[in-house]
């Protein structure tokens, strides 16, 4: 089922974040949302994830769906290593060996047992990405997921993301047009208070 967003409005106090925002997000494919800073992309994702409520409007197609998410921040448990951070959100069906294999695929071999506070920004980002991809989800929400990754391994990570999320609904927010092109799918342009 597609996700249908109708006339969604959100404001903080007197400040309008977006107004009458409508969109259709196709099921089982990638939809990229592009907009200038402050247009309310992250707020929209937070509403989709159920972390905030819209002031007006409705969203259909999210009921009872499991969500996997890469937040704008890494949101990792600092004292735990990458494996524990991932198993924290995974179902028991995912084994430690599987987690290790996935971490190796994104270039984290050798550092998977270090507390994440000791990892570099890029390594933490990759951990957050693998965590979302190994979680149980129907809809994958990615808020600037490739931010902080080296250009050299970004393509590899994007490929990995596409492969792992194949057939699932993926909603991507990014400022980078190259990332949007690479990930493919639909594009929604979001401007302050307007949606095209």
């Amino acid at each position, binding site marked *: 089922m597609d996700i249908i967003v109708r006339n969604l409005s959100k404001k903080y106090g007197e400040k309008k974040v977006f107004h009458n925002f409508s969109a259709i997000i196709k099921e089982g494919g990638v939809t990229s949302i592009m907009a200038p800073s402050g247009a309310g992309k992250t707020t929209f994702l937070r509403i989709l*994830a*159920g*972390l905030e409520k819209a002031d007006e409007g409705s969203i259909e197609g999210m009921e009872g769906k*499991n*969500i*996997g*998410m890469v*937040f704008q*921040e890494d*949101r990792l*448990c*600092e*004292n*735990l290593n990458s494996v*524990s951070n991932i198993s*924290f*959100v995974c179902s028991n069906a995912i084994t430690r060996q599987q987690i290790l294999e996935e971490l190796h695929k994104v270039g984290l071999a050798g550092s998977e047992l270090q507390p994440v506070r000791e990892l570099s920004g890029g390594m933490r980002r990759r951990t957050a990405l693998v965590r979302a991809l190994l*979680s149980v989800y129907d809809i994958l929400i990615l808020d600037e997921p490739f931010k902080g990754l080296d250009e050299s391994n970004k393509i590899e990570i994007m490929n990995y993301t596409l492969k792992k999320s194949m057939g699932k609904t993926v909603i991507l927010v990014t400022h980078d047009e190259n990332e949007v092109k690479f990930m493919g799918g639909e594009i929604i342009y979001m401007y302050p208070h307007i949606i095209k």
Partner: protein
Amino acid sequence: MTFITTDRANKTEVKIWAVLLWLIVWEIAARSIGQEILLVSPVVVLFKFFQLMITLEFWQSVAFSFLRIIGGFILALCVGSFLAAVSSVSSFIRELMQPLIAVMKAVPVASFIIIILIWIPSRNLAAVISFLMVLPVVYKNILEGIERMDRQLLEMAEVFKVSHLKRFRYIYLSQIMPYFKIASSLSLGLCWKAGVAAEVIGIPQGSIGEKLYEAKVYLQTPDLFAWTFTIVLLSAGFERLYLIVVDNLVKKVERG
């Protein structure tokens, strides 16, 4: 979350050379005064301490005071943590607790001791006083820890539908633990000071406080210092042991 960096921890660590220097100053001062009743030498204190240690009465007194003071401390840890958890979700409970905690913090320990002595026999006075001194420290620190909890991690757990047990183990426990440890460290010193003070005033039979009182009445300065040394050892030793146990427990729980 780290509150004291290794560098800072090193700077606040007690150095053996400094302890030895102060012991030498103490020994010189005692010899200069030359009157044991005014200032006893550290060597004599140590000798007296070993003399006391080989008596059954010493261990009975230690057990008597230890059980009550630490009993009050552990009870306050449990009650304080529970009240802080409830206050973090109920503004009514928090507002209700506010004046109570403020009074507990402001009232002098001597006033508490005398008031409590009217109500209960002196035998268990140290436990009640220890509880009253520790409760506000634990409550305030744990509540602060809960309030400073990383909301972003809780949101993450919410989105991924992580079980409450896992949230408690991996998020709440590790984030509140530094506050819990600070509260424990602060209140362990406090409960021994207040607990023994209560015993000195209430003079329950067979307590360390009674021994201190007798030493004062009969001007037995070496006994007074030896018992004080005992209290310091008990307080510092228990604090160290307690923190090791808590650390290991947390590691075990986090590892599952």
